[in-house]
């Protein structure tokens, strides 16, 4: 009896898995907020509308930036828009966010960020003093990341047609490294690290909106990661498989992208994931999981297990996954991250194995297990 039931459950789960593999389709007639939240709805929109229209080999991997050669030079190119509210928040503002975000998208491609553009959409009535503050903060962030903002654009829209100030930045960087990085490169036996405590930016913004009446000592983690990436690549260069900054959708979303693109399982130890008490407390109160909360200065790092090759990976899928990741490479990567001020809180949080492909599994601090899925839209606070 129980066996037939288990078999039936397996069949249903397989059917669901097939349904999930189907081509993405946007069913909604209008854009909703979920389409901008970085979860499944965003993914579907990108794949069904943009990828469908623009399809080309550079876009297809849907990485943080495109990587290509031009005139014998290998470059990375990326763009991002910033619509954060409030514009100024503890630890930063829309200006340094816009610079750091684009710098980070280049850095995690393995590129050295060089030049940025900045486009501003301003609402009629927006205080010039605020724009000065934002620009000054962008200048400081650019100097810190050793990039220059070399071109730009300004548009003004009528009052009510925008929310103060939106910023779009694009950036180019120089690729000085041969081994490709990407979400599709994870292999069984690899180790998974995060570069510091997670969820700080997202929680800061939620609290800064002032709707929650929760006060906590938490500031945005917005920071340029290129220095940290350089330190990491210098230490374990050829062994790094994948880097991603964990922005919208948080660490959980990135891990799911890795599991899906690489056809592997990622197993995470909840206990090992660094989360500051203030962030954890706020998340507990709101009923949301810090794994889904945005960071703006943290990255997920996948490095090869010991005895595994330079960059390409053997892909033999022996996949037992145990022990491999515990050794020298992961520790060396951890040490390299921790030697940099932005990586002091880095930790090894999990490992890659071959089965079950495409899924992220969490060993909970309580000692249970569950899967970690991609959210549809923003994590919604629970009622009670």
């Amino acid at each position, binding site marked *: 009896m*129980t066996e037939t039931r*288990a078999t*039936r*459950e*397996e069949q*249903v*789960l397989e*059917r*669901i898995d097939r*349904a999930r593999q189907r081509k993405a389709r946007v*069913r*909604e007639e*209008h*854009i*909703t*907020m*979920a389409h901008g939240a970085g979860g*499944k*709805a965003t993914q*579907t929109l990108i794949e069904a509308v943009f990828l469908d229209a623009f399809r080309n080999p550079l876009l297809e991997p849907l990485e943080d930036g495109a990587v290509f050669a031009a005139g014998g030079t290998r470059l990375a190119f990326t763009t991002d828009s910033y619509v954060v509210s409030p514009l100024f928040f503890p630890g930063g503002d829309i200006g340094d966010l816009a610079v750091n975000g684009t710098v980070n998208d280049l850095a995690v491609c393995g590129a050295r960020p060089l030049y940025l553009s900045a486009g501003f959409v301003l609402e009629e009535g927006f205080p010039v003093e605020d724009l000065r503050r934002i620009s000054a903060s962008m200048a400081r962030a650019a100097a810190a990341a050793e990039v220059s903002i070399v071109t730009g654009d300004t548009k003004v829209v009528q009052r009510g047609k925008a929310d103060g100030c939106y910023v779009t930045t694009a950036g180019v960087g120089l690729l000085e490294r041969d081994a490709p990085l990407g979400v599709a490169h994870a292999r069984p036996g690899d180790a998974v690290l995060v570069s510091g405590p997670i969820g700080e930016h997202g929680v800061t913004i939620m609290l800064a909106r002032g*709707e*929650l*009446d929760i006060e906590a000592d938490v500031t945005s983690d917005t920071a340029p990661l290129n220095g940290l990436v350089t330190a990491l690549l210098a230490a374990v260069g050829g062994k790094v498989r994948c880097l991603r900054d964990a922005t919208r959708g948080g660490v959980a979303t990135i891990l799911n992208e890795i599991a899906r693109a690489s056809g592997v*399982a990622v*197993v995470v130890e909840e206990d090992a994931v660094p989360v500051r*008490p203030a962030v*954890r*407390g706020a998340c*507990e109160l709101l*009923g949301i*999981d810090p794994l889904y909360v945005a960071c703006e200065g943290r990255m997920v790092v996948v490095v090869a297990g010991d005895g595994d090759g330079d960059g390409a990976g053997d892909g033999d899928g022996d996949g037992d996954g145990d022990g491999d990741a515990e050794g020298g490479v992961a520790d060396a990567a951890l040490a390299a991250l921790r030697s940099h001020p932005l990586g002091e809180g880095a930790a090894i949080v999990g490992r890659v*194995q071959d*089965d*079950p492909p495409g*899924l992220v*599994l*969490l*060993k*909970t*601090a*309580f*000692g*249970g*297990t*569950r*899967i970690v*899925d991609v*959210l*549809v*839209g923003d994590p*919604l*606070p*629970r*009622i*009670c």
Partner: protein
Amino acid sequence: MRFVDEYRDADKARALSARIASLCEPGRTYKFMEVCGGHTHTIYKHGLEDYLPETITLVHGPGCPVCVIPMGRVDDAIHIAEQPDVIMTSFGDMMRVPGGRGSFFDSTAQGADIRMVYSPLDALKIARREPDRRVVFMAIGFETTTPSTAMTVLRAAAEDVRNFSVFCNHVTIIPAIKAILDSPDLRLDGFIGPGHVSTIIGCRPYEFIARDYGRPLVVAGFEPLDILQSVYMLLLQLAEGRSEVENQYARVVPWAGNGKALRAITEVMELRPYFEWRGLGFISHSALRMREKYAAYDAERLFDIPGNRVADPKACQCGEVLKGVLKPWECKVFGTACTPETPIGTCMVSSEGACAAYYNFGRFSRQRVREATR
């Protein structure tokens, strides 16, 4: 973190797990219903079933506030939100719940002003700040959230805020449990009682379950150790041949409930003769409406609402899932036509809904997960 980690201690869980196993009679299977959606969420989020023997099945109950809202009421709320000068306010969970004509999120995409709030008091704040708008609070939930709605109405009345009203959809838990006990297609061995609801109503209202139906009930907290301990307490009652109401969550739940909160509810609201529950149909005396005395704050009286009944989609088996007759994966459309992106039924919407919890956290056989993470 204090007051959290001590209730998630893996060593204590292992010890409890062993005691639970030792209390299980060989050859006997047990079915316990966790009434509250918050418990369902905890069970999946922490992987709690890993600590239970295969012979114990946890059945998910009807206590998920957004899961039981019928489609017609969502349509009514959207209709109100579309009226001139209206700001509709709602808890976050409610935003994605589908009515017959879409959800709040769909409605905002088409121009309605629907804002997420964390408490009805936030809605009242908006009303004070925007005196030219009519601010309506979409009041949903069991006895846990009802007092805050009632208190907000009392405050609005005291401050004479005239542009605030409540679209009252509050429901009560006892009639729902009774409907399940009277349902012929389900055999339960006991209940894990709703902790938050009980902080308001106390433990006495459950006594008929133990007395008349001979089923033990343990009011439980929301941390994973709370739930494991409640399972242990239920098994102990069964082993000793007892059928009683017990309070595992005594650190929060007073046996007699919260008199002040109950008085506020009674002052502002009264029982409806009947109310439709999503998936469960009409249940008499199972919901609250605003009293005549507070008509000025009652959106149902202030707005001309269509009040159309919308039948649940045929394929949807939320009712069976809410009653615990079906496991989420046993529903015909689970995970294929009905997913968190495109929910057909409400159980797939809220993170407390049994289907969403199973889809997001447990969509994988326990056996394989255990093997994979060993």
